[in-house]
């Protein structure tokens, strides 16, 4: 496992010649704010505003940010749970952003999602065996050998197949998340999008699930888009990491760069706000951000972070910075580095 994961870290957008598995180009997702009896549109929420990145085969790209930054919306728009407002989603060389629902079936076999809440993402009235066989019946696969496949899936994620006639409520949170992962894995997808897959779990269970995800990545050559708010978890599992703030990708680089030398003032603040790991550790450089994240319905003009940025300049209030490659494999959207 070690060798493969290290390979993945060396994959970079600037030096890599391999084709990305997923390319997201200028993705936008706006939601209309409706009000009144007539449900007139009174505004737009720019949940995802012009985000671009690529994911290469076998790597894990982490997306971090605080609530409301658009990381989950990005994940859901990529898998077409939300219709993109603008932009392209190129999966395996094919633009899937405009495809009709009917043509999406094949694409969805190759891209699966694991959600945060293992309590609400599994139908409580179906047994685990039924839940795990569902992907096969939806796609009309493996008729006659589905039960055998379900057993194998349960074993793969470390659950006893003898429990397949039980219902989700009979399992603990960690076991339920294993069921969700098994279901995502059923159709042997190429890409799995995990939307906060471990944040509802206790820490001792969280590490079991993170280890499982790493093992499965090696065994099935999976590519992950891992969305989470916990910087330490994202650091652990990811090869490259994108930081989002208010619908924008503000920094994108490999994990060594991001944690050793964060460039964006928001990334710096975010990292310094993480609680220390030992009581005697001192944090002289801690940046306490003032105020709150502005509403995405009414984002600031210029750089979206300028209202809270300790280094904001006049220019930041006027012009929005674009994501540029400041150093090899280190992309940043900030006027300090223009």
């Amino acid at each position, binding site marked *: 496992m070690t060798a493969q994961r290290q390979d993945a870290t060396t994959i970079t957008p600037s030096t890599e010649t391999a084709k990305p598995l997923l390319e997201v180009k200028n993705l936008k997702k706006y939601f209309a704010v409706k009000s009144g009896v007539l449900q007139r549109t009174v505004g737009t929420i720019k949940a995802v505003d012009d985000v671009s990145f690529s994911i290469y085969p076998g790597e894990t790209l982490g997306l971090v940010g605080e609530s409301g930054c658009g990381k989950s919306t990005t994940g859901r728009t990529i898998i077409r749970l939300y219709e993109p407002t603008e932009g392209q989603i190129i999966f395996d060389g094919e633009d899937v952003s405009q495809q009709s629902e009917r043509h999406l079936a094949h694409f969805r076999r190759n891209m699966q999602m694991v959600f945060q809440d293992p309590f609400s993402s599994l139908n409580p009235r179906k047994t685990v065996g039924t839940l795990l066989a569902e992907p096969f019946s939806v796609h009309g696969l493996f008729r006659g050998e589905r039960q055998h496949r379900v057993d194998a899936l349960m074993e793969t994620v470390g659950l006893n197949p003898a429990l397949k006639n039980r219902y989700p409520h009979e399992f603990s949170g960690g076991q339920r998340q294993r069921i969700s992962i098994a279901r995502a894995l059923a159709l042997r997808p190429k890409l799995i999008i995990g939307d906060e897959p471990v944040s509802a779990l206790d*820490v*001792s269970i969280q590490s079991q699930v993170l280890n499982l995800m790493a093992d499965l990545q090696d065994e099935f050559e999976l590519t992950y888009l891992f969305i989470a708010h916990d910087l330490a978890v994202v650091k*652990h599992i990811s090869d490259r990491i994108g930081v989002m703030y208010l619908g924008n990708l503000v920094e994108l680089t490999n994990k060594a760069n991001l*944690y050793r030398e964060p460039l964006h003032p928001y990334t710096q603040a975010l990292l*310094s706000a993480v*609680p220390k790991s030992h009581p*005697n550790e001192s944090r002289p450089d801690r940046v306490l*951000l003032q105020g709150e994240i502005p509403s995405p319905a009414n984002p600031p003009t210029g750089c979206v972070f300028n209202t809270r940025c300790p280094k904001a300049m006049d220019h930041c209030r006027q012009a929005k910075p674009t994501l540029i490659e400041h150093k090899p494999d280190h992309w940043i959207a900030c006027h300090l580095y223009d």
Partner: protein
Amino acid sequence: MTLLDVKNLCTEFKSKRGVVRVVDDVSFSVERGETLAIVGESGSGKSMTSLSIMGLVPQPGGRIASGQILLEGSDLVSAPKEALYQIRGADIAMVFQEPMTSLNPVLTIGDQIAEVLIYHKHLSRSAARLESIELLKRVGFARAESLYDEYPHQLSGGMRQRVMIAIALSCNPKLLIADEPTTALDVTVQAQILDLLRRLSADYDSGILLITHDLGVVAELADQVVVMYAGQIVEQAAVADLFDYPQHPYTQGLMASVPRLDGDVKRLTSIAGNVPSPDALPRGCRFSTRCPHAQALCVEQAPELKPVRSGQSARCFLAEGRIFKEAS
């Protein structure tokens, strides 16, 4: 005099399958100006311990079966309800995890702070208003006057939690119980709230009982730490000792399970299995079903909480020196 002294607290629930003891013989004390953290995962009994101290064990079904909770020497368990009304909010205040549900949505922010001041400090409405605004400023609101007339839904999660802290501080409590105060918050907002709690315990000389699952929050705020597992205290130590020399295999496992920003491991250590259900606890040590070092003695006998290092206790035969790690 010790501010809070919890002695042999046992809290039980009646269920269909009989009586379940969710807090089992828990003892600890908190001094003024000190922060004691209770750490544990879901089902460890940490929240039920804090609810027992507040006299808020869910009814019907739940009750404090035995033990004492002494606030400056007077027992809260045997105190009549009316006396508790006077103590809660004035001497002991509580901040809960969910600032969405703990504020009343139909009252303004100001009314909810003023209510406490009028009830406990017998202030007039206008005096309460002035003091409420002062409190809002103290928890970091720049525009406290206009906030006074706003409603909870107009505020973000972090702002609501600061309002909760303002309410908790309104009567200058001797003890602040903070049950997962930052769990629902983003990391930059969490840093603001932890900073606020730290300054307030210094300014008011209050004791803080912090309930959390997050070892990072413990490292930030605590002086003393109690680790709970399946209703029992398994380890108790000063914060630096706990991080440097964790004695109980559960504490050790918990520390190793957390991914860290400093340092990079290929694989996380994890604790196998799940927390046992309170109505089906193992006969011997409650951690024996998941413990990497468990031996025959651990399965048969339940260890007691014993001093193992200076100022540090653990509930473990291994830490006690009664058994030794088997060569692997």
